[in-house]
């Protein structure tokens, strides 16, 4: 067989695959729309960022100092005073309505106590049913109150003061997109490259067309290659959408080299494609391929890749397990290149691991690929 006929076979086959993708509107919507929807959901709707949280204030003192603190709290972008309470028993009621997350209680004679005994008390009551957010809110409130205290201290000259100054490196505004974009990239590429590729190959088995393809003189490797190319292209389109969205809509700049970012992404796509190939060699139905991809891959990616939960806080067993999740290494690389602006020298270890995994999946797939039924 000459190179020309092989090229022609390949092109015809790839064209056929695109017909399959383009004529199935539902799956095409999933392929191209899912990344956009996921990125927007994780970027805007589901976020750990705290903004405009409703709080209640019980001001038992009503003097200059408490007013100053309240207006300082309100002027921050984090809090809105939702209601002003008049007695202690209203606090719990206010929490039970679900409208407020934090209540701030000032003691009686706040300003007097502050001026004369140098000691005044503010009670912060937070909704502990969401511990992470409660902690964050308490920290924000304490910071605001500390600021007020510092302002007071500047007027009088106190001898010993230690000021802490915090700075969030790489993500000064603590934007949620900085963690969701790499996570969504890791997830989407795995979903499309692995699940769709395995389904596309298994579909041929299920429909019986594989029987004819096998009987044809077309080389099995060529069949696989033509199955993989369209999803590779779809993945590249998705990468472009994700990056454009994250830069222009979510306001997340690419600090490092964009070429390096694309290079590691292509490496990751290869890894996901070869994993899809492996799944297709061990299953015979589209349903099984989908279940393996979803349960066997999506779950570990979300749980173990460090995207949703920090790996360092996990039990040792899970920490070890997380090492075999390719997305973990990819997300580390994306964060390094995209957010920290690190070059190839900083991510060679991760690239090597993913290359090794790809090779491993490919070898097993080739070994398991059947030239017969």
């Amino acid at each position, binding site marked *: 067989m000459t190179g020309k006929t092989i090229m*022609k076979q390949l092109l015809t086959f790839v064209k056929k695959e695109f*017909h399959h993708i383009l004529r199935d509107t539902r799956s095409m919507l999933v392929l191209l729309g899912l990344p956009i929807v996921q990125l927007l959901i994780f970027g805007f709707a589901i976020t750990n960022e705290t903004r405009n949280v409703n709080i209640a204030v019980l001001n038992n003192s009503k003097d200059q100092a408490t007013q100053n603190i309240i207006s300082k709290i309100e002027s921050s972008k984090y809090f809105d005073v939702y209601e002003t309470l008049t007695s202690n028993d209203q606090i719990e009621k206010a929490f039970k309505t679900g409208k407020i997350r934090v209540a701030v209680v000032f003691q009686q004679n706040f300003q007097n106590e502050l001026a004369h005994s140098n000691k005044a008390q503010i009670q912060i009551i937070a909704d502990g049913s969401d511990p992470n957010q409660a902690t964050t809110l308490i920290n924000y409130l304490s910071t605001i109150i500390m600021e007020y205290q510092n302002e007071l201290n500047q007027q009088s000259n106190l001898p010993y003061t230690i000021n802490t100054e915090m700075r969030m490196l790489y993500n000064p505004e603590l934007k949620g997109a900085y963690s969701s974009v790499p996570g969504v990239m890791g997830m989407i590429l795995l979903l499309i490259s692995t699940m769709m590729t395995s389904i596309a190959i298994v579909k041929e088995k299920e*429909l*019986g*067309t594989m029987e004819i*393809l096998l*009987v044809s*003189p*077309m080389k099995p490797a060529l069949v696989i290659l033509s199955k993989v190319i369209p999803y590779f292209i779809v993945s590249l389109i998705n990468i472009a959408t994700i990056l454009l969205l994250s830069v222009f809509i979510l306001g997340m700049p690419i600090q490092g080299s964009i070429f390096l970012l694309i290079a590691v992404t292509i490496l990751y796509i290869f890894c996901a494609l070869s994993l899809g190939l492996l799944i297709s060699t061990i299953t015979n139905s589209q349903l099984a391929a989908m279940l393996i991809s979803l349960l066997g891959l999506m779950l570990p990616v979300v749980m173990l890749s460090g995207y949703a939960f920090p790996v360092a806080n996990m039990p040792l067993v899970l920490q070890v397990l997380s090492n075999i999740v390719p997305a973990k290494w990819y997300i580390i690389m994306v964060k390094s290149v995209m957010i920290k602006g690190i070059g190839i020298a900083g991510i060679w270890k991760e690239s090597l691991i993913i290359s090794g995994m790809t090779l491993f999946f490919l070898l097993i797939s080739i070994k398991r690929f059947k030239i017969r*039924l």
Partner: protein
Amino acid sequence: MKAVVLENIVKTYTTKKSIIKAVDDVSFSVEEGEIFGLIGPDGSGKTSIFRILTTLLLADKGNARVLGYDVVKDWKVIRSIIGYMPGRFSLYQDLTVEENLEFFATIFNTTIQENYNLISDIYKQLEPFKTRRAGKLSGGMKQKLALSCALIHKPKILFLDEPTTGVDPVSRKEFWEMLKRLKAQGISIIVSTPYMDEAKLCDRIALMQNGKIMKIDLPQNIVNEFGKNLYAVHSENMFTLLNDLRAYPQTENCFAFGENHHLTMKEDDPNKLNDYLKSTGHNNFTISKIEPGIEDCFMQLMK
């Protein structure tokens, strides 16, 4: 050279519960330019034989050769000279008629134009629908398209696994006429079918059951060897008639065949049967002597 030779082929499938012998020590050969029919009910091993011959399945025991090439060693060569139409409709439902044909032409290293004369008879009927998706074709049209796709690379041997199952009688007839024309062009055809009436359209047939070949011969010879008088018996109450006929001491064989019961007798005397049926209270019954068909021979062999 023989088109196909099978020698003592055995194929077993192992499931958790049991071991099934799908092909049980089968040997036969097919001449070049012949239409050879594998006739048998579902599960008689026809598809397994097709898959072994098309190199898709490995036999447990025995050898098979297609045009002199060994199905195990020379699988690559065989795959480029055969045309195969699997039992299930195996084309792409979401591609149009033309796209399907073009696709299969390309992966078999040819073009539609190159071998158009081979498929023109069949494809002419499909041409008005060439922009229609294959999934939206009727059953007969689907099979014609599948045959076109199997033929497009001008194979030397055609393997057709139940090509007419689920196809209307008119299309079935057309389909067989096409096979005759292909045979005239020198293509050997091996076809399987569960329809006994199609058996007489083959040059030679093998009657199969439970993985074994019961008989191989010309259809006419098989019918001639029936060797008994066959009677079609009809009455108002067909169900009690079947029981009564089977209870009749002289009955050798009795089966329900469409609207009649087909009967052979040990002592060939229709008059005695007439008396017997009267005595059992049947009204308006008819007993007529008929020519046996392949199906009757099959039933006789199955016993």
